[in-house]
């Protein structure tokens, strides 16, 4: 591991000050579950490392009237135990509770899952499915709000500026009657990188017609996104089994390519049916 200057700010302003000067050669570390292996493999060789785990304002889950705010340094374990999230955003708990194993979940953070921008990230696709927004701060640009779906440019590359710090994940509360489900496939039941995941958020009105649906596969493309073609199969229609099959085919058709070879298609269709079965 190449040596570095190590800094632990106690405040957001301290962190922003450091990044404004050293951001272009600084790696931000929170739980370290992605960063430390990368440092050890010398995939990254920063001359400066900034530890954000001691900034209290970056931790915790809080509730406002219409939205939930999650600090980026909130661990997956803290997310799993949050009463606010149990009540309002259980999809995030479903995703966070399946990352790695308990010692990883006790350190890994939601901000890290987003910032690392792995194609196999589990929590980021769920945040995208929930229409989450990211609050970024820097001395040069001030506060900037970015839709979560726009955070990642390419595998392992966010669009965050070198002097920018992720300071909040903001998710609007879901309307009553919204159903969500998450499924992750990996090589094992735990300690497994995602081979394929699916986050679905769906709302059917009182007449049973689907008014809103969000489908975000994970680990099937370099950059996770909502698959509008599959979503559009459902809008305005009532729930029925034939729709699920049609949407599954549309989803598979939309995704096939470099990242998801033909042989994974039956699995994707099957996962899709399974998850849809849980929300319909």
């Amino acid at each position, binding site marked *: 591991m190449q040596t570095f200057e*190590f800094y632990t700010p106690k405040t957001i302003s301290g962190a922003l000050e450091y990044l404004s000067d050293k951001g272009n050669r600084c790696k931000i*570390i929170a739980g370290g*579950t992605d960063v430390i292996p990368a440092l050890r493999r010398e995939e990254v060789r920063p*001359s400066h490392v900034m530890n954000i785990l001691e900034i209290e304002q970056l931790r915790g889950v809080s509730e406002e009237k219409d939205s939930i705010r999650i600090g980026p340094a909130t661990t997956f374990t803290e997310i799993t135990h949050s009463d606010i999230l149990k009540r309002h955003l259980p999809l995030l708990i479903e995703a966070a509770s399946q990352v790695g194993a308990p010692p990883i979940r006790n350190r890994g953070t939601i901000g890290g899952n987003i910032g690392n921008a792995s194609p196999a990230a589990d929590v980021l696709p769920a945040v995208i499915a929930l229409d989450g927004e990211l609050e970024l701060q820097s001395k040069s640009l001030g506060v900037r709000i970015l839709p979560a779906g726009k955070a990642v440019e390419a595998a392992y590359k966010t669009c965050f500026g070198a002097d920018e710090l992720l300071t909040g994940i903001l998710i609007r509360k879901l309307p009553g009657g919204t159903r969500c489900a998450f499924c992750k496939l990996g090589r094992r039941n735990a300690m497994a990188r995602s081979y394929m995941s699916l986050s679905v958020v769906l709302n059917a009105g009182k007449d049973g017609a689907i008014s809103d649906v969000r489908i975000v596969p994970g680990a099937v493309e370099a950059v996770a996104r909502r698959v509008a073609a599959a979503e559009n199969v459902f809008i305005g229609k009532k729930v029925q089994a034939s729709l699920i099959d049609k949407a599954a085919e549309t989803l598979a058709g939309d995704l096939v390519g470099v990242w998801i070879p033909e042989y994974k298609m039956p699995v994707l269709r099957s996962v899709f049916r399974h998850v849809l079965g849980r929300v319909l």
Partner: protein
Amino acid sequence: MTPMNEKTILRMKVNGRPVEVAVKPTWTLLRVLREELRLTGTKKGCEQGDCGACVVIMNGKTVNSCLVLALQAESKEIETIEGLGTEDNLHPLQKSFIEHGAVQCGFCTPGMLMSSKVLLQENPKPAQEEIKVAISGNLCRCTGYTKIIKAIEAASLKR
């Protein structure tokens, strides 16, 4: 701020005792425990958070000590296997592991015991599935896990 190539004094508590040790910024907590404090009960396995041989308890939660930079442990309370029990005074979990044949080569055992300890503190009567989740971050190549799970279950029933 720790400049490159220089050491900083790290202050933390280990097994109830305050400790001061000079560390380089690139060192992990695992390295400090094993090489600086000579607490070699915690094992070095994969060094990337996949095997759990390095699991210790930090501020009440299990962590892979290979994934904690030493300086991130500043002011934290660390518990290692050395603090769990002594030869003359084994912890009930250690007794149960021995009684149930849950130790073969012993390499995974310290990490398994730390994960089990936290489990029983948070969930005194866990179901078998909950035991499996609690040790899902600890790999064992010898036992096939059955005896480990039995040993934890038995220890929970004895309380």
